[in-house]
């Protein structure tokens, strides 16, 4: 039966298989491209930005964007009430927003995962305490919780980041705990334990990698939430303080200028929208690509 042995197709490795699944969705690819672009802008902000973000050009306050009458090519997207170039502020704001996202999510994820692991693994009283705490945190609408934290810590960018990290925390704790409970009963864990693996090793080396998929998806979506919440706090004056070029705070005094200078309102919000959209697309794409592995 020599001819019956067809050439076995080279099976893709895990990473390659994941990429193939991810690339199925055009939206996911667009998201990825946008995120890459944003990261580049953030990293090279100083180089890309035409003006320093906080430099006030007194003679050019409230200039319209370049394509409007009265606009100037010097300030492509116009200037704000005190004469700062909006484009430059937006570019530097990218750096800020991405930093906020990364730090808040990283902070929240690390603490949340540990808490979730502990709760899910040890069960009993530890679990009850941890889960009650998360219930309480989830009872407050996220913005309210963030405001409460900022009320305690005081306004400012760093405090806003802590507040957001706290807001995201319960979600990661819950997710990790649920995943751990699901995995802990499985055979590979038991065999590891019999082989003599210590608790820490079991938790981090054995169980955690298998819970990674949903966590990754949540982290990406948490990024978008972090950026939105940071903007909200900035808008309310509770986050980044002037003159920091954070997108949300750029919008906070915008209401008065909405008739005279609508560009002051439109562009910062657009920046937020595009960034959050990019991460949401990426998160959705990740979820769809990891799905078959999620369902086990």
């Amino acid at each position, binding site marked *: 039966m020599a001819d019956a042995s067809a050439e076995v197709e080279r099976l893709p490795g895990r990473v390659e298989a994941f990429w193939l699944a991810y690339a199925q969705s055009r939206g996911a690819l667009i998201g990825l491209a946008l995120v890459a672009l944003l990261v580049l802008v953030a990293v090279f902000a100083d180089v890309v930005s035409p003006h320093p973000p906080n430099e006030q050009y007194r003679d050019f306050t409230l200039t319209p964007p370049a394509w409007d009458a009265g606009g100037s090519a010097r300030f492509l997207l116009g200037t704000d009430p005190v004469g700062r170039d909006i484009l430059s502020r937006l570019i530097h704001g990218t750096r800020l927003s991405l930093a906020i996202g990364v730090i808040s999510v990283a902070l929240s994820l690390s603490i949340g995962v540990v808490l979730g692991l502990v709760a899910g693994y040890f069960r009993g009283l530890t679990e009850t305490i941890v889960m009650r705490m998360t219930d309480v945190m989830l009872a*407050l609408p*996220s913005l309210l919780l963030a405001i409460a934290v900022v009320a305690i810590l005081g306004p400012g960018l760093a405090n806003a980041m802590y507040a957001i990290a706290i807001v995201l925390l319960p979600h990661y704790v819950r997710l990790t705990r649920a995943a751990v409970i699901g995995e802990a009963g499985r055979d590979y864990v038991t065999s590891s334990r019999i082989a003599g693996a210590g608790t820490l090793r079991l938790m981090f080396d054995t169980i955690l990698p298998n819970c990674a998929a949903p966590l990754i998806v949540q982290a990406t979506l948490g990024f978008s939430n972090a950026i939105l919440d940071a903007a909200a706090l900035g808008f309310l004056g509770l986050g980044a303080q002037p003159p920091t070029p954070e997108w949300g705070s750029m919008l906070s005094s915008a*209401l008065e200028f909405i008739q005279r200078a609508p560009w002051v309102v439109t562009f910062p*919000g657009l920046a937020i929208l595009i960034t*959050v959209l990019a991460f949401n697309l990426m998160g959705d794409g990740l979820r769809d690509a990891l799905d078959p592995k999620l369902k086990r």
Partner: protein
Amino acid sequence: MPTFLGVTLIAFALIHLIPGDPVENLSGERGMDPARRERLLHEFGLDRPLPVQYAEYVGNVLRGDLGTSLTTHEPVLQEFVTLFPATIELAFFALLFAVVVGLPAGILAALKRNTVADYAVMGVSLTGYSMPIFWWALLLILLFSVQLGWTPVSGRIAIAYDVPAATGFMLFDTLRAGDIAAFRSALWHLILPSIALGTIPLAVIARMTRSSMLEVLREDYVRAARAKGLSRWRVVVVHALRNALIPVITVIGLQVGLLLSGAILTETIFSWPGIGNWLIHGVQSRDYPVVQGGILLVATIVIVVNLVVDALYGVINPRIRHG
């Protein structure tokens, strides 16, 4: 119940965690002379051990005493009750908007999967929850109030009208007073804020409905219903929809928390006299009793709503109802 206690704990702890002297924070007075401070300390019960203070606080809360606002000198609870209806009205219409538009959109997207209609609905809803609410509200104002002049910019009703506050719900009160012009004014003022606030819930509902419908349409009983020769309408509405809506209802209920968050921002922009606005002013003016009481009350409401949703879920899902 334990969640509620946890929330009271947080609200209680808030005062003590805030930087600065608790006495000054609670009274609003700064730089008092020591004697007065001593007296206030005793009055507020701050000289007693913490657990006792907490017990007292909870006792007060259960009696309805949540402190007095530093700025208006009114009882916090009373202020809340006065302002809450405005927020309820806004949230109600926002949710109504979200359901009335989002539900059919999700159903349509599921039925016409992978067509232009589907992509349009999904694209719009993705954009919807990627937008910052306050920006979206500003844009809406820019377009409809400033450029087109269709809707008013802010407030609940035109200043010209003076409506006796009975229920606190502007629509009811204007009708009760028989003032149709005022009623219409109130309605117009509701439109834009409701749309702004309801956009994110709309996006979430549309997505959820679509995915739920898609799952249900694949089920065996839908195929069996078609094999019975039932009309397409019957298959989709009586069988598929009924089952698909079960998880969606839960999601709708959970939007309340989101609505309250969004209300804070929306009310600020539209100068809507509700509790969102009240809370923000409280934070900005360091009116700590307001902040403390506000957080407690809002969290309580969210907890109650979640309980109601859970109960409702038990009713509409026959598997739980009839075990």
